[in-house]
């Protein structure tokens, strides 16, 4: 077992997959000599050459579309969007083409490809380097969407994504990149896409979260245990599409109370789906309203640190919401 942070885990996953399978290639802006603006691809260009670790022009439509073409051809491209905020020029390719190539060809053409995107706020990135735009993709049939919150999950799920026969959107929360180190199993450990994990067991209420929110929810759970004697169960969804409904409902069945937390704005956010599933299929187990805690209804995280702090979900906001729900 090695102690890695999430950034290192991601880099290692790509390195090992490039090594293992010569159909794998990495492409994106500045992923080559510079090693990516966050360093996620550092060292790979020197090791695998400038075709397999390819600097593209500044054109996201191209990155996604060329990756799709390469996947049609039989490669396993791993494309990087420099920031999730810059994926929109590629939206047509992702939604019109990548998500539905298999369906429209009646199964004849699959697209085994990954699009990695650093997302999330709290890094002084303001409106265009902080977005949590996962809901555009979680609502898109034909995609899988993964958002890990630990180094081991990041590595194991990225490997799974690269080997998956279908397109996977891989969300990496920038604030978690170097937030902490944790043990990552040695060797070729591949985690299944589509399974949530119970990050902390509890009986009083369930907190559903992913990415950086896992970290915040665990801190909040500590506070709730210490100060309120409340045992919160923290469920890290890890895969947002498909949602691990069984684990979600199982947790609600145990606790009777559901708090769904994410950083993106609430209206139409991913949490709406989780809440709606619980409201419909977990209705009989509910001892209180399915509660959402999400970013405010503004277009994205504003810059000034005071404004950014106002925006961000943090452990204490989670504690407050959990207390209110527990008291219901």
């Amino acid at each position, binding site marked *: 077992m090695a102690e890695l942070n999430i950034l290192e885990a991601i880099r290692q996953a790509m390195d090992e997959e490039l090594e293992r399978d010569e159909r794998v290639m990495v492409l994106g802006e500045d992923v080559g000599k510079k090693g990516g603006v966050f360093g996620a691809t550092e060292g790979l260009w020197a090791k695998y050459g400038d075709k397999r670790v390819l600097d593209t022009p500044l054109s996201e439509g*191209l990155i996604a579309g060329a990756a*799709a073409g390469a996947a049609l051809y039989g490669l396993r491209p791993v494309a990087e969007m420099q920031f999730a905020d810059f994926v929109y020029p590629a939206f*047509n*390719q992702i939604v019109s083409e990548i998500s*539905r190539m298999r369906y429209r060809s009646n199964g*004849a053409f699959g697209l085994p490809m990954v699009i990695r995107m650093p997302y999330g706020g709290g890094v002084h990135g303001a409106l265009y380097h902080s977005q949590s735009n996962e809901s555009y993709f979680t609502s898109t049939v*034909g995609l899988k969407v993964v958002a890990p919150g630990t180094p081991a999950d990041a590595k194991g799920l990225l490997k799974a994504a690269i080997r998956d*026969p279908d397109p996977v959107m891989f969300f990496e929360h920038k604030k978690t990149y170097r937030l902490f180190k944790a043990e990552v199993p040695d060797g070729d450990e591949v985690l299944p896409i589509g399974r949530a994990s119970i990050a902390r067991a509890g009986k009083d209420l369930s907190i559903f979260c992913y990415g950086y929110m896992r970290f915040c929810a665990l801190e909040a759970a500590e506070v709730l245990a210490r100060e309120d004697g409340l045992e919160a169960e923290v469920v890290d969804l890890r895969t947002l599409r498909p949602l691990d409904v069984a684990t979600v409902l199982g947790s609600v069945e145990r606790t009777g109370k559901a708090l769904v937390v994410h950083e993106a704005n609430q209206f139409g956010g991913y949490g709406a789906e989780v809440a709606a599933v619980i409201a419909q299929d977990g209705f009989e187990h509910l001892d209180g309203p399915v509660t959402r805690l999400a970013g405010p209804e503004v277009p994205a995280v504003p810059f000034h640190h005071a404004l950014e702090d106002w925006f961000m979900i943090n452990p204490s906001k989670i504690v407050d919401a959990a207390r209110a729900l527990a008291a219901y």
Partner: protein
Amino acid sequence: MATTKAAATTRHRELGLSDDEVLAMYRAMLLARAVDERMWLMQRAGKIAFIISGQGHEGAQVGTSWAMRRGQDWMAPFYRSIAATMTFGMSAEDIITAHLAKGDDVSSGGRQMPGHYGGAPYNIVSVSSPVGTQVLHAVGIAMAAWVRGDDVVAITFYGEGTSNQGEIHEAMNFAGVHKLPVIFVCENNGYAISVPLAKQVGGLSVAARAVGYGMPGVTVDGSDVLACFGAAREAHARARAGEGPTLIEAKVVRLTSHSSDDDQRRYRDPSEVEGLKEHDPLPRFADQLRQLGILTDPIEERLRAEVKAEVNEASRRAEARPDPEPETAAGGVYAAETR
């Protein structure tokens, strides 16, 4: 007359085509046209819901596609690519089956609208409706071949209206940067539905854009099938030699309305429409072949009879195929082995 004949003779031979081959090209055009016309009839008879036609584009499509290697190269076509996809391997039956949306249609199993060709067995990328997206796929395929060191060339087709989509720019630029083995064929028929070239293309020439990507841009008369073949053959050779992409702008005519949902009389003068027939690639090619003595009345008759029989047989068989079962619509979203 003698000189013309000699010149014409020299021409297809110089392009490396035998007499049999040019006759086969002519037959391919006849067949595509016949399939196309048959489908309009089927549309009027209510058997086919919609048709978007390739009539007038056959010269450009057969000419350029003829330069490609079936089963080795790749094609990313568009909705008018009846003749191109047939030249690259699809049968008349495949095309008609797709229009009838039958359950075992190779393109989509009845999931897609008519005109959305595709065929994994033929290396033909599945067509979608948003125009221009396929051009990036062709470039991605060319990139993959380049990364892997494979001897593969990709060809892609689109209209001049489509040439104004941003994705086309991104695709062509990237192909230019890395000298990727890809051929861009813009079939310029002067209209994007109702909007004429002058309101679509600043500068009026699509080929003129090539220089901005560091690749040659060639304008050809799209009703001159041999000129189209020649341009594509050269482009193919360049691609294989690592010299990079080529943009071919083929000036064609749209002999029909945009689609069966459109009525071009609303926006086009009758005289303009009438004049288009002069540019029909079929009689033009026939004339050339007749001048060379390659095509004669008996041959023409035989070809037409063969083509008619083929289309009859294809539609009979296509119509007999099973419709899709409703519940099958739920499947094929993800690979079977995953959830």
